């Protein structure tokens, strides 16, 4: 019923509009001509746009591609947009690689400081929170010993529990210092590993930054195409004589470019209109994903590790209490295990870095040549595998050592 109603309404509206069009005084030419033109003109236009296809069948694919690959390729300002994209991605890559090659040791070694004012006060407030629980536990145990336990076995067990609880109480009060000692230990071990394999670590970080740059240059290549790249190269070489263009041109520009920045801007503004954009930035999403994955894989994991260690540091008094009270022993074991594991992730990271460095140094030179991409814009499979090892290695070690403590 409803459909019919709407149908009728539509017919009416359409009819009114058609009558309006027909009666419209703005239509000065004869009506038939207009309608005829309305039908034929667009057809003619379409036919015209397909004319060269019909004449030269080779164009069929390009024409189809235009229609079907990406309809809005003819959007506004593609040159400036793509240039901004490439520029920002370059900036990002540059800062990330610089940061990581400078600070990786610091990032790996950082641990929460349990003696820091805020952390300490929080831990002590948790200890205050624990007091009623302790009282409750002791009272219940005392009641058990006094009234309920009949067998001497049970009584001795309860007594040992009391002594455990008291030891736990002492440990809880010094827990920040305990943790500080433990973290220092872990840091020293990690530091040792890192200084032992300094060369390897540098090499591993170099591999990582290399892949990051490789991804960036692949993006550039995908957008501007190999020919356009060649054009830029000749342009720059001819214009700025003495300016060597290589893989690290960006770095060069940042180091020395300040002096000639005006000149550089001129070069860019002159060569930009000549660039031929061959793909929209949306087509380079795989490379962008690679860059972001690498970024998250290192920074995200390190930051997450830090936060998790902080989490279990704050919980440490509870951990000791749970461990020393028999019914909640399992929970305390889990908490302690997690604390140890998340702290040891820094050792895992150092080990993985050294392992990657060693592997990359030991690798025969010719094997590094195999990769994907079109020369010279390639990323070696081994480099990529090294990067993914850097990302996943610590997690894998973490998972393998999950059953670290003996069952309690």
């Amino acid at each position, binding site marked *: 019923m409803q459909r019919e109603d709407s149908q009728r309404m539509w017919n009416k509206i359409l009819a009114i509009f058609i009558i309006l069009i027909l009666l419209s005084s703005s239509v000065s030419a004869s009506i038939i001509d207009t309608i005829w033109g309305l039908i034929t003109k667009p057809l003619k236009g379409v036919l015209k746009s397909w004319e060269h296809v019909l004449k030269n069948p080779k164009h069929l694919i390009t024409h189809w591609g235009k229609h079907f690959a990406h309809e809005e390729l003819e959007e506004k300002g593609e040159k400036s947009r793509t240039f*901004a994209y490439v520029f920002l991605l370059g900036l990002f890559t540059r800062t990330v690689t610089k940061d990581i090659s400078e600070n990786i040791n610091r990032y790996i070694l950082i641990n929460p400081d349990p003696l820091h004012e805020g952390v300490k006060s*929080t831990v002590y407030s948790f200890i205050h929170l624990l007091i009623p629980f302790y009282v409750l536990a002791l009272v219940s145990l005392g009641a058990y010993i006094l009234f309920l336990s009949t067998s001497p076995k049970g009584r001795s067990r309860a007594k040992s529990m009391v002594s455990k609880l008291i030891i736990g109480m002492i440990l809880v009060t010094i827990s920040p210092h305990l943790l500080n000692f433990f973290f220092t230990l872990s840091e020293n071990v990690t530091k040792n590993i890192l200084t032992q394999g300094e060369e390897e670590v540098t090499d591993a970080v170099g591999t990582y930054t290399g892949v990051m740059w490789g991804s960036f240059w692949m993006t550039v290549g995908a957008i501007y195409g190999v020919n356009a790249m060649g054009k830029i190269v000749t342009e720059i070489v001819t214009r700025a004589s003495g300016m060597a263009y290589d893989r690290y041109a960006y770095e060069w520009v940042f180091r020395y470019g300040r002096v000639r920045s005006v000149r550089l801007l001129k070069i860019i503004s002159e060569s930009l209109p000549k660039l031929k954009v061959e793909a929209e930035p949306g087509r380079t999403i795989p490379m962008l994903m690679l860059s972001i994955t690498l970024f998250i894989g290192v920074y995200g994991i390190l930051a997450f590790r830090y*936060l998790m260690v902080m*989490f279990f540091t704050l919980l440490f008094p509870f951990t000791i209490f749970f461990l020393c009270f028999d019914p909640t022993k399992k*929970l305390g074991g889990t908490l302690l295990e997690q604390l140890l594991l998340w702290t040891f992730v820094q050792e895992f990271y150092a080990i993985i870095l050294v392992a990657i460095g060693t592997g990359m140094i030991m690798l025969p030179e010719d094997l590094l040549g195999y990769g994907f991409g079109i020369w010279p814009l390639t990323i070696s499979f081994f480099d990529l595998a090294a990067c993914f090892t850097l990302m996943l290695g610590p997690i894998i070690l973490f998972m393998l050592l999950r059953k670290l403590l003996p069952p309690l």
Partner: protein
Amino acid sequence: MRMDSRIKILIVIGLILVAMSISTAVRIPKIFGESHETGFNRMGIIIWIAKRLLYIWLSASYGTEGLNELKANLSEIVMMNPSITTLSNLMVIVIKLVFALYIPAIAFLGFYILFLSSSPEGRAEAKSMLTKLIVGLIFVSVSPQLMNLLLTVSEGLTSSILAPTAKGVFTKAWDTSIGATPLDLRLELSGLKGLHFIATFIEIELGFYTFLFFMILVWGAFIFPILIRFFAVSVFIVLFPLSILLYSFEFTKALGRTMLEQTIIWTFLQVINALIVLTVVQSIISLGEDFMKVGLGPTTMPVIPLVGCLMFAVAPLFIIRFFRGFLP
């Protein structure tokens, strides 16, 4: 809020007008020109910019919907628990059902004692089963109070963790990681919103991929640790008598253990949420603002606040996985 969005619309219109006047007054450099034969079209550019501004405004407001409420009512939202009075109707029905189920359970145990256990050991075992069942019966009859106690303990712990916490730091972490754009009436381009802004102007396809970050951070923060927990706790409140029965009956102990464990884990998830807030706050305070802040200009990534907010959204779900299997 209503006022704010109206101002935003006005600003968008104003920006369009400004762009219009600029485009008519100033000759736009050649690099902004078109590469196609149709020639330069000012109106087209204006529409183009306006559409992107509208898109950014709309998708960012979808992406950060409710963020202000989250920041303002953080402790209330973390401490949100279903009230037992709303669920009492259902709970009474379940308790009745459980009492009805006790009759066959006890009858079954009686048969077990009569027929199957011939050895005195087996008989003692069956008797202990019966005791467990009866203790379970007591617990079932006080189960609403018990559940209330559990919720009170969890709430008390949460509030005592949250009370000394500098929640302003966490709010600021949200602010820095979400960032701001000129559309928020601020002269800056930072955080995820800035990224979204730039990406949309580069290409809309990149813009809707950057929308994902909002989805994980803000939508995730509401959905996973807060609202799914709310529903789950409600279900386990209602099922609490049943899980006590199942746990105290020897033959269904495994299922009962899972359910009871889930009850406790989901209830105490809010403590973990509060602890995560505390962790992030302490980390930011003790590390300083500039630690691990990578990037230059609009590509700056404040890693610690970002990962902290991400942790609030997804980490509770991972952390509760560590705590499984603690009941005997």
